[in-house]
């Protein structure tokens, strides 16, 4: 390609969201030393405005689809969908962090800068069309989030969480990179569509036998990011140790982005050799659902409980991946939107209740919340009902689409077991509702300030989204359905 190494303006526009995010993050880094101490919290506004601008840029990118940077980037409906989603998760996290950081006396520009860097990495993952690009996006996203997990550095638990996350995470990325190298060795390319066309030749491809192993190596890298079996064990420790808003973020943004590349790599590039990786997904989906749901049953710490619940939800999404069809992809897309809303919402309520230094994160600390704070309790109930999958909430339609895709792909046993596992899940979510409404508040129960400000906005936006998607899923489902065609 001798034409030019200087990108055209159209190409630059296609990565405008990432440019905006990185610029905003850099701006925050520059401004941070100039503002003193608690004033730094004001940089949250910069973060918020940057994210909103990036959201607008991502949306407008939809109207000018196409590749950029020698096909490393591909902006299409699918990319737009996940870009919007991860940026939206970033907005919710920013809103949920503001009061939390103030309460912890940890107001800092760095936090928001890291958040923006991480979101830019995820946004890049959503739009990448090449294994190397995916790897770079993943690393940008991960490195920033490792630091965020240990952000409150005088808290031993947070340090432990960050270290664990970092070590295991780098280990898993190494597997990913190794898998990429194998794929390159087999197909001679890292470009997803070329890989696909090589595999479409079927049995004549030299080294096709190794393709399954390469797929498994890549699976390791991604499965770690979404906390799927057998690489789920970091999630509870990290979520528990990390600050609540960071746990909310980790459970939403990186996961959504990881599922986006999961689809890109496995459905687009490795689609023709589906028979080689589908059994792996089948097993992992089932084990993830079972482990997540059954382990959540015995948790007493709400952050840990939500961590196991998020493992279980990754299992449901893997069911849709196993279906390996267009409606399966659409189901993944819809579910991630529903999941981001309900999970970040639930964590945001926890961030509200947990109090200074997260003293109140045991389930008993939620006793009588229905009387102490009817609004917070009612909103948390909405999120929990959505996580259970009760109709008229987004979570229900998410599950519905997933299991519909699975049944269409004749995965009857996976569907039945998955649905039964989700009935088990009802028990531990209900337990929180029981404690909130049916237990008397403990005498030591903290005085809670009313749910207001940015945190309140995060919770209300999530709740409204959960209900709106639960009643009018067509709003984004049609878009997901159309974009799913692109990831074929």
């Amino acid at each position, binding site marked *: 390609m001798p034409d030019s190494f200087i990108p055209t303006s159209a190409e630059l526009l296609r990565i405008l969201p990432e440019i905006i995010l990185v610029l905003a993050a850099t701006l925050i880094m520059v401004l941070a030393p100039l503002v003193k101490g608690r004033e730094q919290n004001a940089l949250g506004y910069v973060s918020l405005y940057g994210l909103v601008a990036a959201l607008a840029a991502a949306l407008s990118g939809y109207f000018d689809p196409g590749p950029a940077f020698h096909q490393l980037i591909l902006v299409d409906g699918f990319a737009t969908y996940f870009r919007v989603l991860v940026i939206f998760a970033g907005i919710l996290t920013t809103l949920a962090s503001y009061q939390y950081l103030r309460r912890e006396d940890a107001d800092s520009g760095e936090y928001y800068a890291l958040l923006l860097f991480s979101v830019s990495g995820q946004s890049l993952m959503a739009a990448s069309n090449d294994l190397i690009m995916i790897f770079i996006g993943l690393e940008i996203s991960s490195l920033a989030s490792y630091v965020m997990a240990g952000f409150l550095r005088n808290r031993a638990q947070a340090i432990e969480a960050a270290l664990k996350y970092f070590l295991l995470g780098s280990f898993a990325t190494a597997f990913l990179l190794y898998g990429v190298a194998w794929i390159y060795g087999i197909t001679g390319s890292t470009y997803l569509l070329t890989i696909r066309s090589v595999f479409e030749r079927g049995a004549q491809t030299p080294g096709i036998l190794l393709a399954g192993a390469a797929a498994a190596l890549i699976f390791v890298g991604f499965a770690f990011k979404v906390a799927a079996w057998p690489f789920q064990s970091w999630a509870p420790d990290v979520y528990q140790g990390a600050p609540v808003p960071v746990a909310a973020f980790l459970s939403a943004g990186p996961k959504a982005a990881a599922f986006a590349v999961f689809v890109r790599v496995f459905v687009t590039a490795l689609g023709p050799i589906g028979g080689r990786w589908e059994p792996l997904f089948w097993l992992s989906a089932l084990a993830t659902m079972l482990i997540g749901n059954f382990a959540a049953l015995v948790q007493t710490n709400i952050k840990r409980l939500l961590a196991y619940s998020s493992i279980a939800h990754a299992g449901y999404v893997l069911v849709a991946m196993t279906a390996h069809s267009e409606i399966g992809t659409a189901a993944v897309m819809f579910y991630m939107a529903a999941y981001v809303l309900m999970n970040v919402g639930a964590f945001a309520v926890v961030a509200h209740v947990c109090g200074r230094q997260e003293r109140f994160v045991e389930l008993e600390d939620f006793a009588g919340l229905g009387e102490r704070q009817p609004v917070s309790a009612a909103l948390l109930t909405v999120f929990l009902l959505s996580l*259970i999958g009760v109709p008229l909430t987004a979570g229900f339609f998410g599950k519905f689409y997933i299991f519909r895709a699975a049944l269409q792909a004749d995965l009857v046993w996976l569907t039945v077991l998955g649905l039964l596992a989700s009935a088990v899940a009802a028990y531990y979510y209900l337990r929180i509702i029981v404690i909130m409404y049916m237990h008397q508040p403990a005498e030591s129960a903290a005085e809670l300030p009313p749910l207001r400000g940015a945190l309140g906005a995060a919770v209300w936006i999530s709740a409204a989204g959960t209900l709106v998607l639960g009643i*009018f899923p067509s709003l984004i489902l049609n878009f997901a359905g159309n974009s799913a065609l692109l990831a074929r």
Partner: protein
Amino acid sequence: MILLNLCLALPAAAFLLLLLVPRSRPGWSRWSALAASLVIFAVSLALLAEFDGSNGGFQLETNIPWISAPSIRYHVGVDGMSLWLVLLTTFLTPVAVLISWRHIAARVKEFYAFLLLLELGLIGVFVALDLFLFYVFWEVSLVPMYFLIGIWGHERRIYAAVKFFLYTMAGSVLMLAAMIYLYNLAGTFDYGLLMADLVSGRMQLGARQESLLFLAFFVAFAIKVPLVPFHTWLPDAHVEAPTAGSVILASVMLKMGCYGLIRFCLPLFPTASRGNAPWIVLLAIVGIIYGALVAMVQPNMKKLVAYSSVSHLGFVVLGVFSFTQLGLDGAVYQMLNHGISTGALFMLVGYMYERRHSLEISAYGGVATPAPMLASVFMITSLASLGLPSLNNFVGEFLVLQGAAQANFTWAVFAAIGVILSACYLLWLYQRTFLGEASDEVKSHMFDLVPREWAATLPMIVLMVWMGVAAQTFLPSIGAANARILDRMQQGVVMDVKNTMPARGTEVARAR
């Protein structure tokens, strides 16, 4: 048509409005809940005027798209069976409001809000003609009942509430899987279209397929009915629920299961229904006798009434799976009867609990002395429940037994034992609580019905007599609806014969 939508819109609106009532004014919540439920009842009564009882098909339909892909429609309508169940729901909701007037003192606003949300879910279940919509309402009705039991119930309320939720949930996820499976075959959730596809043979289910789908639906409904051995959640839920919760649970919620059997299991899977009928009938008869025997030895009044429900609902299932016109008519009629008479029993037991604060039979005795009116009302209700001729249950049980006898005489013989046993446990209950020497506690605590309680009780008594002597008010439209379902079952069988043995199939067709 607009009326039926109002029956759904009004409870939803009332629920939202009630959330806005200030917490500090429990009186406002009570009165607005009463007013709303009475208005809804009035609207549902107006349905009767628009409804043509001689037509067995669906009427007053609304069918508009809700979600485009997958195609899910807001499709509602009533036939001769669901109309009466809707009326039962709207009739009992104001009654439930009245009997909770004093009993519910804490979190009054939320209580009534949940009651109205429950009404929405229940009406929705009976009018939904889209499988998906049906599932939505089915689950929506689950949540408020869970809270009603869990927040306002008795000592072991949390255990009971969670058990109730999990049992129903476990059944209904399988039903959801079956619904999705059907959708993937037919491309629609619409009840009418599915039926048309099945009747015309455009959609054909293999024997194994049909039987698994049938079981998935059946288990969800059998848990809700509840059929032995899926009944263990029921006594717990009933005993722990507040009075209004028990009344709605027994009178309407259990009917969701029976309704589902008739509406979905029979016509969608006729061959599998017939194939599985023997063991289902066996379970029903076991339920009739087992429920009655266990009821007899209960020391707790509410538990006694709960087990009597197990027994009575055995009759409904027996009637349904006799596949005769009489049996089905009797089953539907028995659903309504049980709603009125067992609802009234729970209500009266609730009155007694409010006075004496005990559900133990041994805490009573001689109540008839201080509270003669309560005693006579209880007597009438017991007699209705045990099937005395000229009161309502007799008609239903008689029809069911007649239908069962048509199908297989032995079934009727065993089921009839249940009728005798019901007389034993109910009269014995009456004897132990109302007759004899009144102890000092009973004398000091028990007093007669107050006007508010009369207002809730009298309509129930009137209905018991009316349904007993003027069954013709109800039966023609029920019969017309059932006739269509039976007709469909005949077609199903004929069609299957045609598929497997073409030669005989043409013969049958010619004979018709």
